[in-house]
């Protein structure tokens, strides 16, 4: 059986399901990814949200969603999905809910929640085998509060709390590996700049049961300091420099869905964003750029 109906770009939905006119910034990569994911998921969903930029999507009395929405808190969106799923299961089992009225709970959070405050709730939801989809839009910082460093902030990036000459001293946490270590049904990285890859992965995720993560790198003009119009370029460079590997985990195996060839030097990506400007001016920091390059090279050597 072929689980995909999306094979080519022209198979992608042509009109967006998610309404326009939201409070998100122009060129928001997170919103772009959400549009594409929602088009595939459809409206028989309840988005269970944690505190972050996307919380302002549902703003009384307006919502861009055709389906349902439940805001919880920064730490406990997966537990909200658990409550909804458990309740629906109980109703279905007792014949109190026609199957056509069933819904899919979709957790929607930023990286701050997914990598940090909500990680305990996430880990437990996976371990319980909760049948849910988790969509994390990763803008690599606490965007809603002004882009402070989070567990997802990459090394050397300047943030509101790492504004010094060297940027963020830490290294981005590997959420893909953390999820995969739980042996869930599915884990995939996606980016809005690669819509076909994204849509096929969401399609795969829908066809599976159990805990599933769609981890979307979400270029953020406001927090990363680039022009909104450059959104797609920044996204493509994240993939083509190998900084953001597109991959999926399924049945214990990791597959890379796009191996960048040739792999562009990382500075092609870093130099597009103000948050890395200190690596290039007033003096070029060759050592720091080389260290980032070496880390990316090491990753892809491991992929072979």
């Amino acid at each position, binding site marked *: 059986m072929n689980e995909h109906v999306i094979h080519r770009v022209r198979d992608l939905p042509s009109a967006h399901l998610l309404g326009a006119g939201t409070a998100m910034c122009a060129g928001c990569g997170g919103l772009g990814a959400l549009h594409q994911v929602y088009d595939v998921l459809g409206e028989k969903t309840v988005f269970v949200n944690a505190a972050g930029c996307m919380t302002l999507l549902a703003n009384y009395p307006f919502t861009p969603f055709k389906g349902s929405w439940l805001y919880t808190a920064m730490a*406990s969106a997966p537990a909200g999905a658990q409550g909804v799923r458990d309740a629906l299961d109980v109703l279905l089992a007792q014949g109190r809910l026609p199957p*056509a009225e069933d819904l899919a709970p979709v957790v929607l959070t930023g990286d701050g929640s997914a990598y940090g405050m909500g990680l305990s709730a996430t880990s437990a939801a996976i371990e319980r085998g909760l049948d849910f989809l988790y969509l994390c839009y990763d803008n690599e910082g606490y965007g809603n509060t002004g882009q402070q460093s989070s567990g997802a902030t990459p090394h050397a990036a300047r943030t509101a709390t790492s504004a010094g000459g060297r940027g963020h001293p830490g290294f981005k946490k590997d959420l893909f590996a953390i999820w995969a270590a739980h042996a869930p049904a599915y884990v995939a990285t996606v980016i809005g700049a690669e819509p076909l890859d994204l849509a096929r992965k969401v399609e795969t995720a829908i066809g599976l049961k159990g805990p599933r993560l769609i981890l979307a790198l979400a270029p953020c003009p406001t927090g990363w300091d680039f022009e909104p119009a450059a959104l797609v370029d920044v996204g493509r460079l994240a993939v083509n420099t190998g900084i953001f590997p597109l991959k999926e985990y399924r049945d214990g195996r990791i597959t890379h869905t796009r191996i960048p060839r040739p792999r562009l030097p990382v500075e092609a990506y870093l130099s597009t964003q103000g948050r890395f400007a200190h690596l290039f001016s007033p003096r070029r920091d060759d050592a720091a750029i080389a260290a980032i390059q070496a880390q990316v090279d090491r990753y892809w050597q491991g992929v072979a």
Partner: protein
Amino acid sequence: MTRRLLTGNAAAAWGARLAGVDYVPAFPITPQTEIIETLARWFDGGEMRGRLTMLESEHSMVTAAAAAAATGVRVFTATSSQGLLYAMEMIHAVPGWRVPFVLANVSRGLATPITLEPDHNDVLAARDSGFLQIHCASCQEVHDSVLIAYRLAEDARVRLPVIVNLDGFYLSFTREPVEVADPAAARAFLPPFTGRGIEFRASRPVSQAAAVLGGSQYSYFRYETHLAALQALPAYAEIAAAFAEAFGRHHPAVEAYRSDDAEFVFVMIGSFATKARDAVDRLREAGARVGLVRPRLLRPFPAADLRRHLLGKRGIAVIDQNLSFGKGGVLHAELASVLYGEPGAPLLASFIGGLGGRDFAPEEFYEMIDVTRRAADSGRAPEPRLLYTAGELREMRKLQAIAAVERHEDGAGKP
């Protein structure tokens, strides 16, 4: 109806079982754990239909409870002390979702220092959350209050979650004879939950707990929750009357014991109020006109009932089993706020006691009435008193002496 010897925890579990609860998100904490273990056994054994899910924290547990309630099933959960505080973000958030469910809190003193024994600082931390609060003094009341709490939470005028509070150890682990309701009678009193529009359904999308822009909209929804909580006063009176009719036991919002002709009255909540009740009997035997007034409902605050019972008395000994540091007893302040300026307002004397399960000696109750009487005679309210005897202080000094010796020896033994 069958009479059984039940702990307060078992009585709470029976209440949930008879309420036909569909879903229990759970997390263990002493002295609450017996409740969820009992329910887990009943779900496993098929005595209850539905599901119990172990969460990884109380914050998640309360999130899951409210999310399930918002999906349209009947939900029960339970916690205590640190667990209630760990969930506090959600305790304040979910009443605004306007979905009904019941949470049993088994009161236990908060850290620091760590203790397992009861006082009410835990549940009073939830006072301003929007959860309604029913405080129980016996295991029978726990059983009955869970059933009453569902009717109240689900009442169309109310639609708020309810905490049923029972004191750790003194109720949770104490076996008392409890009339367990006949399942059919319980069902007649509390028909199965149908959601009545509270639901997530594919064909009827809803947005729950959305953001608002600005203080005006925000205030509107906050006022709505407040007005709903106030609606719970008449709703409670009706429900308690219906309960009395069905089961023959009346649980008014405020229980008054021998207070009608009393000059002086104790005001207290929870199981320790039964100690005050004994003291009332003794004082009456000695000729003193003393009574007890015990609010069962703490939110909404039954102001009118309290005024009715207390205006015209000479003095009130308010006994707080909690302590707001730098202020005093919470109940005392609440009571003062509804009596002040009323004609016939009695003098209020404030006493703090029973922290961490510290017991009350009968003589302490007599002394409290003495203090209150002298204050009423002089017309001046006394400073709040922290109950602590010379004997207790002597014991504490002994422990401190031991601690000093231990520290000294430890220190001396090290380079």
